[in-house]
C-alpha cells in the first residue's frame, strides 16, 4: 500500500489518499472495474448525499465548482460511499483475494489472547447497517471478536467490512482455517493450586468440548454413509 497523505499534490488519486490516511489501514483498494459497474452500486444513491459527485471524486473525475462547505460534505460522502462499496467489494472473488493478501501481510494485527499465539485477525462488523458500531477484529483461532488495540479504529464504521466477510473468506480458502487443537483453557492458580471455581468451569468446558468432538465424528460418519449409498 502506498502511503500518500499529502493531498496538495494534484496527481495523487483519491483512493491512494484514502488508503494512506491514518485509521484506514484495514481497507483494500477497490478496482476501477467494480467501481464503474452501476449494478454494484444498487441502492447506494439513497444512502449517500451528493452520491454522483462523491462517486466522481472517488474515481478522480470530480469537476464541480462549489463552495468549501459543499466540497467538505462531498468529501465526507465520498469516504462513506467508499466504505459502503468496500463492504460489497470484499465479498467478491477479487475483493476476497485482496483482503487475503492483507491478512497474510498481517495488516489487520494479531489476536490479543495469549493462547492464540499472535494469530492474525480479520476486520469484522457487528452489523451490516451503517453507523451501528465501529469495526472490530475477529480471530479464527479462538473464534471471538475483540476491540482493535489502537484508538483510531474506534472511528471506523464496522459496516464498511460487514458481518459476513471473515466467514466467506474461510469458506473460500478453507486451508487458512487454523488448527483448533488448542491447549486446555487457562486456569489461574494461587500458591500453586488451581482456583476451585475456575477449575470446575474448565472441567465442565472440557466435557462440552468432548461432546462437540463426538458430534463432529458423527457428521463425518453420516457423510461417509451418504457417499457409499450414492
Amino acid at each position: 500500500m502506498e502511503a500518500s497523505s499529502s493531498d496538495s499534490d494534484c496527481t495523487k488519486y483519491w483512493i491512494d489518499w484514502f488508503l494512506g490516511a491514518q485509521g484506514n489501514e484495514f481497507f483494500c483498494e477497490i478496482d476501477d472495474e467494480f467501481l464503474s459497474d452501476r449494478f454494484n452500486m444498487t441502492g447506494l444513491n439513497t444512502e449517500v448525499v451528493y452520491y454522483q459527485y462523491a462517486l466522481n471524486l472517488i474515481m478522480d473525475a470530480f469537476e464541480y465548482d462549489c463552495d468549501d462547505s459543499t466540497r467538505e460534505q462531498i468529501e465526507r460522502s465520498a469516504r462513506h460511499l467508499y466504505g459502503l462499496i468496500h463492504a460489497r467489494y470484499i465479498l467478491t472473488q477479487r475483493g476476497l483475494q485482496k483482503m487475503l493478501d492483507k491478512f497474510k501481510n498481517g495488516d489487520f494485527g494479531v489476536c490479543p489472547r495469549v493462547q492464540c499465539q499472535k494469530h492474525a485477525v480479520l476486520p469484522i462488523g457487528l452489523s451490516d447497517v451503517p453507523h451501528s458500531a465501529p469495526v472490530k477484529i475477529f480471530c479464527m483461532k479462538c473464534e471471538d471478536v475483540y476491540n482493535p488495540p489502537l484508538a483510531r479504529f474506534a472511528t471506523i464504521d464496522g459496516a464498511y467490512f460487514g458481518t459476513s466477510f471473515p466467514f466467506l473468506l474461510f469458506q473460500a480458502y478453507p486451508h487458512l482455517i487454523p488448527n483448533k487443537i488448542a491447549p486446555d483453557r487457562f486456569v489461574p492458580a494461587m500458591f500453586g493450586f488451581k482456583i476451585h471455581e475456575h477449575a470446575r468451569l474448565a472441567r465442565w468446558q472440557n466435557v462440552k468440548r468432548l461432546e462437540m468432538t463426538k458430534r463432529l465424528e458423527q457428521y463425518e460418519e453420516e457423510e461417509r454413509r451418504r457417499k457409499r449409498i450414492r
Partner: protein
Amino acid sequence: MDAKQGTAAASSVGPRKTGAGSAGFGESSMMEGVEHHLQYADNASTATETAEAAAEGEVEEEEDDDEEEEEEEEESDEETESSRSEGETWISSFCSIRGHEYFAEVSEDFIEDDFNLTGLSSLVPYYGEALDMILDFETDPDDAARLPNIPVIEASADQLYGLIHARFLLTRQGLSIMAEKYNLTHFGVCPRYLCHSTHLLPIATSDLPGNDTVKLFCPNCADIYCANKENEVDGAYFGATFAGLFLKTYTDIPGPLGGLRIPPSTLKRLESSDEDSKQSSSDTSLHDPDSKWEIYQMHLFGFKVSERAKSGPRMRWLRERPSDLSELDSL
C-alpha cells in the same frame, strides 16, 4: 447480535470483611500495614496522578508516528534515575516510568523488614547496593570506587524491586493499593468485545524470573491477554498468585460463574461447613438477574455458520458457561 452493555464490568471493588487470610509473605507486618497505609495514602495519590498522566500520554502517543514514539522513549529514559526531581524517592520515580504503570509503590517498611526479603540476596547481583539504591541510601564513596558503573546496579535494583514487589502484592497493603489501581483501570480493559470493558489484572504464568512476560487476566472471561509492548516486564515481578488472591479478597468482582443462579440445594452443599450462613444468603440476590452471558456467533449472510461446515464453530466450549451451577455438580 445484541450488544448488552455493562453487566459484566465491575467498576469498583471494596475489601471483603474477612480479609485475605493466607498471604504468604510479610504476614507479621500485615496488621501494622493497615495503619501505615493511612500515612502512606498521600504518597500513593501523587503517584497515581503521575501514572494517570503517563497513561494519557500513552493514548495520544498511539496515534503518533513511529518516529515520534522513539523520541519520546528517549526523553522518558532521561527522566529515569539520573535526573529525578527533588523529594522524589527511587521507588516513586521507578513507578512513574512509562511502561511501569502496573507497578504499585512498595512501602519502605516492607522492604526494611529482612524477613520479607528472604532468599532474594542469592538471586540478584550486587544485592546490597541495589537495596541501598531502592531505599535511597547514599553509597559509601570508598565502596563506589570498587563497584561497577551505575547502570549495572540500576538493573539489579530494578530486578530486586520487581521481586520484592511480587511478594508485597500478597500483603493486605499491597492488595489494597492494587485495588485502587484496578478501580482506576491502570491495568486496562479486556479486549474481548463481549466482556464490555471488564477491568484487567496483571498475572504471571510463572513465578520464576526470566520465564515469561507479564500477562493480563480478565475476571469475566477468565482468560489471559497480552500486555502492551511497553508494559511487557518480567511476569515474576507480579507473580502467578496475585490475581487469584485478589479475586478471593475482593469477592464483589464477579467471577466466570458470577452471573449464574445457584439452585438452593447447591447453595447448601457449598456452605455445609458454615452452618450459620445458610439462611442469610439462600436467595439469588448475590447474582445480577439481568446479566446474560454472551458468546459470539458466526454469521454468513444472516445465517448462523453451521457446526457441520468445515469453517464452522469449534471453539464455543472456550466461552461457554453452564446455565445453572448444578450442571457443574453433575460432572
